[in-house]
């Protein structure tokens, strides 16, 4: 089955979180659309509450109980994941699509050896056992550069460092040669040198296994290091999307511009003050009618408070949702 260049297509995804009283509705993801090509790495950049993680969880169909996909389509190899039954999703997850979470101490079970946790997807999806299973596990451990795998496989998570555990999580994620890998803040819990090592590893795995990758991050640096394209989210919507260099060199949405300008850069010392963004992100249950960034936007127009801007195409692959952009 081949569906051309596109592995994943998300169309107008809306994921809302219902409050316990059923009245308060948090629009965590509110009309998100994007494509992911085979072998491509897409970064989803946003602050907490921007909907970036909810988008990822919606694709994997592992949303928390209170969250529902209200509308939209998620086409994976042309098939709508939202129409799949639980059993079929279980078959896909871990085999064709897998995920790396932020904190390996949380994503690994402290009561089982890392070996048994690495073996699980191989037993379930590939029905491996005995020598072939052992060989595959050793092969995976060396793919993520963990020395003396035989000893390590018998150890428990608490016996290893965070960087090593995250590499184990990486090994589990690629164990069944998935087509799609989603990494949600994969290096936020790691030290800088270990973070750099892990990003190197992700890059190597992606290139050697021809993976399509979605990296969810709040850090433009991670995106700059790894991604071909980025999608910037704010308050549940995509505000700007484009090739990584375009976004860095010619950001068009005021939010993207302001974020990039507010990051301290050690190579440009001497600038005493940082350009800050005033205010704070909005409450997603009480969004204003117009553009959610309008209250904080330095170049706000009167129209912004009334109507949400549509998507405006700047270049073939570069789009932004902003009235300013449309006016130019």
């Amino acid at each position, binding site marked *: 089955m081949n569906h051309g260049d596109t592995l994943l297509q998300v169309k107008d995804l809306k994921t809302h979180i219902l409050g316990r009283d059923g009245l308060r509705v948090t629009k965590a993801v509110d009309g998100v659309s994007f494509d992911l090509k085979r072998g491509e790495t897409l970064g989803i950049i946003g602050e907490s509450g921007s909907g970036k993680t909810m988008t990822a969880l919606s694709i994997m169909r592992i949303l928390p109980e209170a969250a529902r996909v209200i509308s939209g389509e998620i086409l994976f190899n042309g098939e709508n994941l939202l129409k799949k039954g639980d059993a079929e999703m279980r078959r896909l997850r871990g085999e064709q699509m897998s995920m790396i979470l932020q904190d390996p101490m949380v994503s690994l079970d402290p009561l089982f050896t890392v070996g048994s946790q690495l073996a699980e997807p191989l037993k379930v999806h590939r029905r491996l056992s005995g020598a072939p299973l052992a060989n595959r596990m050793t092969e995976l451990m060396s793919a993520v550069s963990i020395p003396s795998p035989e000893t390590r496989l018998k150890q428990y998570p608490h016996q290893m460092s965070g960087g090593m555990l995250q590499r184990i999580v990486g090994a589990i994620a690629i164990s069944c040669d998935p087509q799609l890998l989603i990494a949600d803040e994969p290096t936020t819990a790691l030290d800088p040198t270990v973070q750099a090592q892990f990003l190197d590893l992700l890059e190597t795995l992606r290139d050697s296994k021809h993976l399509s990758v979605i990296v969810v991050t709040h850090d433009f*640096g991670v995106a700059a290091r790894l991604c071909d394209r980025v999608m910037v989210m704010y308050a549940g919507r995509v505000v700007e999307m484009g090739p*990584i260099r375009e976004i860095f060199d010619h950001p068009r949405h005021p*939010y993207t511009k302001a974020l990039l300008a507010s990051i301290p850069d050690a*190579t440009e010392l001497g600038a005493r003050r940082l350009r800050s963004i005033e205010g704070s992100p909005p409450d997603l249950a009480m969004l204003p009618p117009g553009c959610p960034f309008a209250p*904080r936007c330095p170049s706000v127009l009167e129209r912004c408070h009334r109507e949400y801007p549509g998507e405006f195409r700047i270049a073939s692959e570069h789009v932004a949702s902003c009235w300013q952009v449309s006016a130019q």
Partner: protein
Amino acid sequence: MTQYLLEADNLVKHFPVGRGGGFRQTNRPMIKAVDGVSFKLEAGTSLGLVGESGCGKTTTARLLLRLYDVTAGSIRFGGEEVQNATGKPLRAYRNQVQAVFQDPYSSLNPRMRVRDIVAEPLVAQGQMGRKELRDWVNELLSVVGLDANAAHRFPHEFSGGQRQRIAIARGLALRPRLVILDEPVSALDVSIRAQILNLLQDLQDKFNLSYVLIAHDLDVVAHMCDVIAVMYLGKIVEMGTADSISRAPAHPYTQALFSARLPARPDGRAARIKLSGEIPSPLNPPPGCHFHTRCPHVMARCRSAQPPLTTLPDGRIAACHLLGPA
């Protein structure tokens, strides 16, 4: 001669771990969390402590706050030795040294109103009348950029950035001269970080504050600090002006640490120095230079002799056999 506000001389903190060592505990295994750290800080300036987890930067901060007792070494504040102070002198010292921590969700008591949180250090000190206290709290709130009506509200009503402002207001309540900032922005949203960093710099100018800043984000430290000290396994391996350290790191560890920084731009991918292996346990640091097990330039001498901190031509100090006198 420069009068320093803070002088740490050969600070040592060892923590006993596990069992063993016999009845007298003379040979109990020790974690050498801080192992001979010295630095000086002028009033109104900032020192950044950087290094990976376990390097001893937070322990150093806690020694300065007198939350831990030193195993050895001295802390002089305004010329007075304070490392063993008790009673009144200790209280006087603590009034002048305050802290702002990483997570404003856990550092503020959810059951207290903002005015009580900010006023608590003043109430504890007990030298202000009610009217005077209320006026000062209101002034503090406005200094950190919060509305006066914030005083009557509870922490949960505020966002992360606003909570960090409350924590900063509390830190300033006693008019300290030194504030220890332990990862003050890493728990905050990206769009909020610049606000708080700018606020900290404004307050530094306004009150002539000194900062000891701990952060894993090297760009933040280079932006905020005059001097950077790089720590590895309980020791300072390099210390110098923020400019010299971030532009031209001299010690191989500093070079590796700064080269691991994420690129500021997609094409800004600098040649990275890859470190092999993991940070050794501080329980059993390797002999010689602690960094020799991971150093790309390791020599025979590094495995046996610990390099002393030596002053380089540009005034910075570094501990490496490559840089010392041949």
